[in-house]
């Protein structure tokens, strides 16, 4: 199909879809309405029996924990898939790891200064997932991107030495497996998968909400190692791997 024909077809379909969307959107509950039956029930359960101050954390890791387990497996599967696709091909070789990523000294300094701060913030956000906004996903992403500040600081070789793939792959698998194991433990204790089986504590204290902080930790480990692995393999592709012809130039 030519570009023009494709564009014409898109115009027709988009007009129809746009009209249908507006009709459907008119039928939604009014923006800002006070009618939220699911939300009200989730809040009542979270601050009542489950003692979880961050209701979003309660929904993610307790009330709808099975969803999150599925999401964990999506994350796990696509990290594995991307790693397989990005592994060095036989006709590629590594060049210039040592010299890669030379940067201005001020940029390097900024990278070094921000590294401990972002690791601290990431850890804090993972640990406080049950009582304040944040949790395993958010903290894990911050930890993983903070880790790559070493690349910004121009220490690509150091980064590669510090982050061998094997332990990270292991950590990712352990994080995912821990989540599933806590779920199975729920079957053993109460006959229900992913039941919140630990003591709930009192609303708002660090050790409250039962299994929610534990699951947050498991997700934190998995997300951190998964995102570090992803970013590292993209960095490898862009910075060190060249096809043989290019490497000879």
């Amino acid at each position: 199909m030519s570009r023009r024909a494709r564009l014409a077809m898109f115009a027709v379909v988009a007009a129809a879809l746009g009209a249908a969307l507006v009709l459907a959107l008119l039928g939604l509950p009014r923006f800002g309405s006070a009618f939220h039956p699911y939300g009200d029930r989730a809040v009542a359960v979270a601050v009542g029996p489950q003692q979880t101050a961050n209701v979003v954390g309660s929904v993610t890791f307790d009330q709808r924990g099975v969803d999150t387990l599925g999401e964990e497996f999506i994350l796990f599967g696509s990290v594995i898939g991307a790693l397989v696709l990005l592994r060095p091909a036989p006709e590629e070789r590594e060049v210039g790891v040592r010299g890669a990523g030379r940067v201005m000294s001020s940029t390097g300094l900024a990278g070094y200064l921000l590294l401990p701060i972002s690791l601290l913030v990431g850890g804090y956000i993972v640990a406080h997932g049950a009582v304040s906004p944040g949790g395993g996903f958010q903290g894990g992403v911050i930890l993983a991107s903070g880790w790559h500040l070493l690349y910004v600081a121009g220490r690509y070789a150091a980064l590669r030495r510090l982050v061998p793939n094997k332990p990270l792959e292991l950590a990712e698998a352990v994080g995912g497996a821990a989540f599933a194991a806590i779920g199975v433990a729920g079957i053993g204790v109460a006959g229900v998968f992913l039941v919140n089986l630990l003591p709930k504590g009192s609303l708002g204290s660090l050790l409250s909400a039962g299994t929610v902080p534990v699951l947050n930790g498991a997700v934190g480990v998995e997300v951190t190692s998964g995102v570090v692995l992803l970013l590292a393999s993209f960095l490898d592709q862009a910075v060190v791997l060249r096809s043989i012809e290019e490497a000879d130039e």
Partner: protein
Amino acid sequence: MTALLVVALLLVALAGTLVVLAPGPSRQAVTLSVFGLALTVLFVVLQAPDVALSQLGVGTVVVPLMIMLTVQKTRRGR
């Protein structure tokens, strides 16, 4: 519906359009990062701090960075 909310919504719509109309993928990675930031602001205004934190990490750092690195690699082959 506050003025702040209207501004945040229009900012998201504008940034999203700019990402789609970006002339090439490397320009797009930068506008995508700005779009991620606009979405983060919108989520804060919509009282969703959990989602905003997630979007801040994923949408303004990880995804644009992956796109940048892919652009760098695919451009070299030409």
